[in-house]
């Protein structure tokens, strides 16, 4: 169930509602599909197997090095149930679901209320397993550090953990400005700088697609400038990707480098030039959001299938943990859930519980319907 009373509405209202629902689901299932498509998903999901399986995998890494063989180990089950190692979503989808869960049960959504959710979750030990930025913020909260210091005094303040959560915020909150505001409150708990800017951008982009209903394409007419406007919040600016940040510069570089690309796949070697090769982690928002924006731009300009943007993003190995997920969220919001292949949707809508055990078995499409019911029905709360 999703639409509580389709038959009593005038046809155009019903159609707009259906379109909004399709966009919401598109953002969420796109995120989950992208989450599943990257190779790190199997690593995350292998957390559901006994620790010794992962210890042996680490030993096999060493074996490959010492024995000088090119056979690299992959997550394996040996004598265990191999179900967790099937294709499916992992950390990012669970984080979006966790965010949806608290957001949909919150009364008045205020900055203080959002921070309080984190404070309570941190002190009660119920925050899902997350990135370095999140774990550091949780340590801080447990030690009495207050937001936004938890996000600012944080070695990975620049990562995309909050940008991933912002997909849920954008899907739940229909209004773009409000979505960016709420996403910013959530983001500042774990991130700062690029990490917060990227979250505000993602929430605004998804919410704008939701608000646009069937005319979602209006917001992306004009390509980069409109994407840039969504990022900066300056709707009238001609060239609004923020110049003075690593995020803004990288987005611009990525979009410019792929301006001639006719398909996402064609863009990948060009985007490899934008990938950081220095650091040991590939979840910087400046990198993953830039890839997502560039591939979304290509998808919208050329009308290519949204799944192609995701599978292309998964071909950048160092960013494969979250660039495909963010790409999926943006193209899913822009094009709607109905444009993803049924084969992918069917495999990616149910959570594994590899980061938030309580969410194991939850269908994120159903969760979204429950979470956004009041918004769709009454247009209030958020």
């Amino acid at each position, binding site marked *: 169930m999703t639409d509580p009373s389709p038959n009593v509405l005038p046809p155009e209202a019903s159609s707009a509602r259906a379109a909004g629902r399709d966009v919401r689901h598109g953002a969420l299932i796109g995120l989950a599909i992208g989450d599943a498509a990257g190779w790190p998903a199997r690593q995350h999901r292998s957390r559901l197997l006994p620790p010794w399986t992962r210890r042996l995998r680490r030993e096999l890494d060493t074996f490959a090095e010492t024995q000088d063989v090119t056979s690299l180990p992959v997550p394996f089950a040996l004598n265990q149930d191999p179900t967790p190692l099937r294709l499916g979503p992992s950390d990012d989808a669970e984080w979006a679901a966790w965010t949806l869960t608290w957001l949909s049960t919150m009364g008045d959504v205020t900055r203080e209320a959002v921070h309080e959710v984190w404070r309570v979750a941190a002190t009660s030990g119920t925050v899902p397993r997350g990135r*370095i930025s999140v774990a*550091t913020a949780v*340590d801080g909260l447990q030690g009495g550090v207050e937001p936004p210091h938890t996000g600012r*005094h944080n*070695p990975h303040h620049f990562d995309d953990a909050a940008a991933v959560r912002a997909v849920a915020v954008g899907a739940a909150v229909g209004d773009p400005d409000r979505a960016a505001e709420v996403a910013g409150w959530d983001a500042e708990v774990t991130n700062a700088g690029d990490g917060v800017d990227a979250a505000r951008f993602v929430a605004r982009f998804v919410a704008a697609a939701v608000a646009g209903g069937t005319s979602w394409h209006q917001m992306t007419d004009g390509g980069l400038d409109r994407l840039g406007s969504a990022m900066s919040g300056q709707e009238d600016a001609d060239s609004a990707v923020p110049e003075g940040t*690593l995020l803004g510069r990288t987005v611009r570089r990525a979009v410019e480098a792929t301006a001639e690309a006719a398909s996402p796949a064609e863009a990948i070697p060009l985007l490899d030039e934008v990938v*950081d090769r*220095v*650091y*040991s982690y590939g979840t910087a928002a400046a990198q993953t959001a830039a890839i997502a924006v560039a591939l979304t731009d290509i998808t919208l300009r050329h009308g290519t299938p949204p799944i192609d943007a995701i599978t292309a993003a998964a071909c950048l190995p160092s960013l494969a943990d979250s660039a495909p997920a963010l790409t999926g969220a943006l193209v899913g919001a822009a094009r709607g859930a109905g444009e993803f292949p049924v084969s992918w949707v069917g495999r990616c809508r149910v959570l594994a519980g590899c980061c938030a055990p309580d969410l194991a078995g939850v269908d994120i499409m159903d969760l979204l319907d429950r979470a956004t019911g009041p918004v769709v029905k009454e247009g209030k709360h958020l």
Partner: protein
Amino acid sequence: MNLPERARGCLVGLAVGDAMGAPAENMTAGAIAERWGEVTGFLTDTPAGTDDTEYAAFSALLLIDHGSQLTSAAVADAWIEHLAGRTGGFPGAGFSELGTIENLRAGLRPPASGDHLHSWSDGLAMRAAVHGVFAAGDPVEAARLAAVDGAVSHAGEGIYAGQAVAAGVAVAMSGGVLDDVVAAAIASVPGDSWTGMALATAREHAHGNTGESQAWSVIAEKLLDTLVTPRYPWTDLGPEAVGLAFGAFIAAGGEFSVAVPRAVSMGRDADTTAAIAGALAGAMGGYSAIPPAWVDIGPVTGRCLGDVVAGLHLADLADHLVGATS
């Protein structure tokens, strides 16, 4: 005490700390104690400086050339001329240095060149003491110069960490007592910054505790507990490094022979924390405060940066820095 005496104390002190800490870099305090017992001097028979000494020497050369007219553009040009063309990597350097080089190679200029994923590293803090030597007695000017130098390679907290070291050294260079040195460092950065809060934490735990080794082990544990970010695997955070360095410096009452081994004993980025502690204590106590057994540290090897710094003597650079001021 005259300026050259303090300047030599600072830069040779930096090199001594670097060399003493290098074998303990990235080790835990427990592992260091298990391997070497109480740290009382060099940990190898052939102590040698690393990236801290070489980048400090490089920044000293820039100051000697440009003085207070130093610009971030000139720093960037020097990095491009002398460092960006190097092949085969940058031995001893951290993520922030290679991140900067990659940005410069891609055509970015400061401050964009310093805006990479490790902009908060301790890579400016490790070389910023030279700005305090040059701007002796003027912590505001020292911090300004550190920020000018740092804009090529760092941003945000990485700049603040450098400012704190430069400002602290500047006050020590003019005969400031320990409390003044620490206060100047804290005053040089925003109070709610990560670096500012790390320095305040270090002062809180270390102040007034100059007693025997038992007390130090308790202090060290508190410093490590409060300043280290356990969910992050690397040891290169600027706020952490200056916090640990100032903690060791304060707990030793600014005494060189105590401060530097104590910084080493905490591990983490031990060469950098000991280099900072050595620069502060050396500027405060002067060259004569460095124990004779440690003082003959030898010229810069050039293993990290090559010919541009190879063969330079820190004491000579110190003299030139003082001369460049007048």
